[in-house]
């Protein structure tokens, strides 16, 4: 049974890490009262950025360019939504479309339209002494690429930041009542922009993780809806960092089921497995929305600029 459980846990974590990173980014944005549908675009841009950076100067540079690419999408979203006050949903949708088109075009321009499988070095696993020797879970959880540990730490750090710092409290107050936050002397728009930029960067890193810690290559449209799934995870996690972490793991587990089923020799149309994350997203949203309390100002049109 161990030969099923251990790969299952490993696959769960592997799928959950990029989802979790992206969802943490979106959590910041949503706590500031905004919805960034362009997260999908940030992930895809990050994946392409990772390819460019890593093929030029290695894995570390790949993560840096991935973060920059995500940041770039964040800058565009901030420009549209905070500066111009355009509709959040439409701006986000357009940015995702932009990212799909731009990465596809650049990919074919740089690497040829054949899209030959371009292999790049992936991030080496880093075993944590002691923990990685644990039975069953050791390798699956603690002998992973370093980005995995970054994801592990993001949740607790974000929870602490929201609860214990002035900036975290300020951000949450913007998501609940921007007018009151402004009256209390908080620079509302500046905080929103910061949240969007950090959120975009995390989305970019999530895309970088797909390329640098998993696939080892880039494919057009490889984000495959993860940005939207991450948004669902934020809802499922009830807008808390620990909830988001749990939600990402749940999605990871659901996706990992296909490997487990295959290992157990259960035969079914492969499309059935591929469709599970999307169906789960729908089910999760239907089950979670009614009971969870969203930030009060979430998705509301921004107040007029003065």
């Amino acid at each position, binding site marked *: 049974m161990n030969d099923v459980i251990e790969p299952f846990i490993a696959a769960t974590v592997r799928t959950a890490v990029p989802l979790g990173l992206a969802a943490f980014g979106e959590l910041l944005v949503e706590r500031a009262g905004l919805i960034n549908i362009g997260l999908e675009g940030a992930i895809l841009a990050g994946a392409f950025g990772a390819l460019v950076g890593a093929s030029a100067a290695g894995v570390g540079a790949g993560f840096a360019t991935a973060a920059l690419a995500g940041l770039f999408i964040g800058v565009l979203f901030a420009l549209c939504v905070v500066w111009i006050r355009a509709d959040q949903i439409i701006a986000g949708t357009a940015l995702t479309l932009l990212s799909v088109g731009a990465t596809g075009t650049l990919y074919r321009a740089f690497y040829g339209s054949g899209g030959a499988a371009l292999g790049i070095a992936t991030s080496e696993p880093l075993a944590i002494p002691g923990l990685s020797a644990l039975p069953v879970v050791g390798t699956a959880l603690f002998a992973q690429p370093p980005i995995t540990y970054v994801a592990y730490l993001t949740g607790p750090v974000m929870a602490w930041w929201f609860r214990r710092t002035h900036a975290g409290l300020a951000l949450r107050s913007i998501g609940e009542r921007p007018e009151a936050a402004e009256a209390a002397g908080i620079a509302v728009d500046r905080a929103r922009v910061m949240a969007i930029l950090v959120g975009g960067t995390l989305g970019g890193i999530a895309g970088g993780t797909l390329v640098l810690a998993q696939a080892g290559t880039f494919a057009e449209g490889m984000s495959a809806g993860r940005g939207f799934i991450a948004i669902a995870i934020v809802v499922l996690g009830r807008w808390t960092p620990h909830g988001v972490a749990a939600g990402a793991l749940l999605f990871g587990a659901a996706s990992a089921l296909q490997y487990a089923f295959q290992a157990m020799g259960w035969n079914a149309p492969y499309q059935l497995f591929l469709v599970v994350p999307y169906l789960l997203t729908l089910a999760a*949203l239907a089950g979670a929305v009614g009971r969870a309390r969203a930030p009060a100002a979430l998705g509301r049109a921004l107040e007029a600029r003065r």
Partner: protein
Amino acid sequence: MATAERQAPARRSGANTALHELALAAVVVAAIAGATALLLLAGGYPVGRGLAALWSGSFGSWYAFTSATLVRAVPLMLTGAAVAIAFRAGVLNIGAEGQLLVGAAAAVALALVSREDPGLLALAPPLVAAAAGGAVWAGVAAFLRTRYGVLEVISTIMLNFVATYVVSYLVRGPLQEPTRVYPQSATIADAFQLPRISGAGRLHVGLLLALALAGVAGWVLRRTAVGFRIVATGENPSAAASAGGIDVRKTTMHAFLVSGALAGLAGGVEVLGVTFALYENISPGYGYTAIAVALLARLDPWRGVATALLFGALEAGAGAMQRDAGVPSTLVSVIEAALILAVVAAQAARARRLSGDSAVAIRPVNA
């Protein structure tokens, strides 16, 4: 989104309005040409050859205009009208792509099992099936929204992915062609294929259907009580309910279903008029392009006919650019996205100038 339009000075004369629209169209076309040239330059492609291919592949010849541009404009007119109706009602239906795919699958499935009846009547059942399929697919998202408050932006995108895999399964499973070699369905019988318009190459009578439905959709939105209820609901649901006595929930639901039916029909028309079989990738993203079509038309299905033509030409021209000048056809998505952003930004700026208030009214989500 229609806020800006309604706040515009209403006393402009008819001729002036037409001139204004023409000037706007010229600006848009010039912007597209300029943006394309810039992108070609940035990508290191031959600019002159690229633009020449863009033109020759879209409007350069009667054949290109009918068989490439108009053939692509037909599904865009239908999906564009679908998106326009939904957005007007405050329903952000990003799922036209999935609804189109399900409509296509339903039409092919019915055409393959039906007995062939002679005459045009044979065409009705598969087209109805396509519309019903699209409506059912939209209905899932509509149900999730009205019953559980699930943001339809997310649910329709998820359903797009699900629809892709459903088609992928169908063409390798129950609907696969008899030899079981290729991942596609058998070709539908001649009786179910939409007649072509004579002298117009591959262009089929689906064009007339699309024009008629876009006409009806625009008329309903502009001139009828139903249209008023839809627009009022989209503009301000609480005011529509309290001051207008409108059943907001029902209006929203109906608009969503009609939107899905139109998108499904686009899929049906595509398989009955162009591909004659179901396979993966029957749509090069018509359902996403439809968002640009509808927004650029300021959510009016009549103007949407013109913007569908524009984007049909752009898609056709992009295909030619790829063939003749080696330019990736994904370039079109970049131009579409830039256009959407430009339109949204222009509307926001205009609304702010006119009212001093924040621009586009998006209804609160998850509230």
